[in-house]
Structure formats: C-alpha cells, structure tokens
C-alpha cells in the first residue's frame, strides 16, 4: 500500500514509465491503483521513430506487472517522508503485505 499511496501523491506530474521490454512512455500520471497499474495522459513514446505503432494513442492504461521503472521528477519526491513511511511500514506491515 505504501507505493500506491506514494504514487497517488504524484498524480498530475509528468512521469516516464519504462516497461520490461525496454519500451519507455512519457506522460502525465492520471491514476494508479492497488496493483500499481498506471494510467497516463498525453503520452509520448520515447524514441518515437523506432515505435510509430502508437502514434494514434494519446492516453493509455499500463498494467503494473509489465512495468520495470517509473521515472519521476526529483523535486516531487520527499525522500525523507518516504524513508519514514518505509520505516513505519516495516514495523507494522499493512494487511495483505508479505514479510
């Protein structure tokens, strides 16, 4: 739940999602869910010339299971807060978390 909450704070920010097959997509984070599925608006595929397949797609839903990285704008991340939350999560894992 920690990262779900974390991503919720980033809604509205531009992010770049890199998939496990190296395809990278930049867009504005519209929403995220408990599976860390991601919805992006105004997408632009990084390296468009190599991937013109999605020229006609402006917003998309990306399944969490295929995401390798989510690149975030550094100023949007409060690392101290995140460390704190991670510490608390360790001491008291939320329901449904695996140890």
């Amino acid at each position, binding site marked *: 739940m920690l990262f779900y909450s974390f991503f919720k704070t980033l809604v509205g920010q531009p992010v770049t999602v890199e998939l496990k097959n190296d395809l990278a997509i930049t867009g504005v984070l519209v929403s995220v*869910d408990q599976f860390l599925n991601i919805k992006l608006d105004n997408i632009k595929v990084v390296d468009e010339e190599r991937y013109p397949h999605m020229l006609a797609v402006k917003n*998309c839903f990306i399944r969490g299971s*295929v995401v390798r990285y989510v690149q975030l704008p550094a100023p949007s991340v409060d690392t101290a807060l995140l460390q704190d939350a991670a510490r608390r999560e360790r001491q008291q894992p939320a329901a449904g978390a695996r140890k």
Partner: protein
Amino acid sequence: MSDQLRSLVDHPVFVYLTDGRTLVGQLMGYDQAANVILGKTHERIFSSTEAMKTVPIGVYVIRGETIALIGELDEELDEQADYDNMMVEPLDPVML
C-alpha cells in the same frame, strides 16, 4: 482499477499484448484482473519489409495477464497515420 478502464469502455482501443502483438478494437468490458472483451478486433501486423497488415478477428476475450497496455485510439490521428508506408519491426514481447 475499475475506474481506470471504465472511461475506455465503448471506445476504440489499442491493445498491446505481452507476446508483442498489437490489436485494435472496441472495448466492450473488463474486470478486476484486467481481463478484457474486445469487439470488432483487428490485429495489426508490422514488418520491417512490408507495409502494415490488418487482419480482422472478431470478438476476443483477452486474459489480463497477457495485456501489457491498453491505449485509447484517437481515430483522427489514426487516419492521419501513414500505415501503408510504415515498415517497422513489430513491438517486442515483454518478458515478465
């Protein structure tokens, strides 16, 4: 999650599968696992040596596990795109 796909129902969508295939169709339904029902489905087959081919395959139920991405297809942009001259490698499969 139901909210994320709800806005796409009855819209033309572009579905990218983990095996690298690209489908285009009308999103008719979905569930919590992102299993999806796609109507009027066409598979778009890309090749670096030939123009893009489109194969109509009807109504499909696609298991969520095999879906990498669902995009809302902007029909205007789709019409403008020059698929007849688009000779590119198909999208890579996703190794989970």
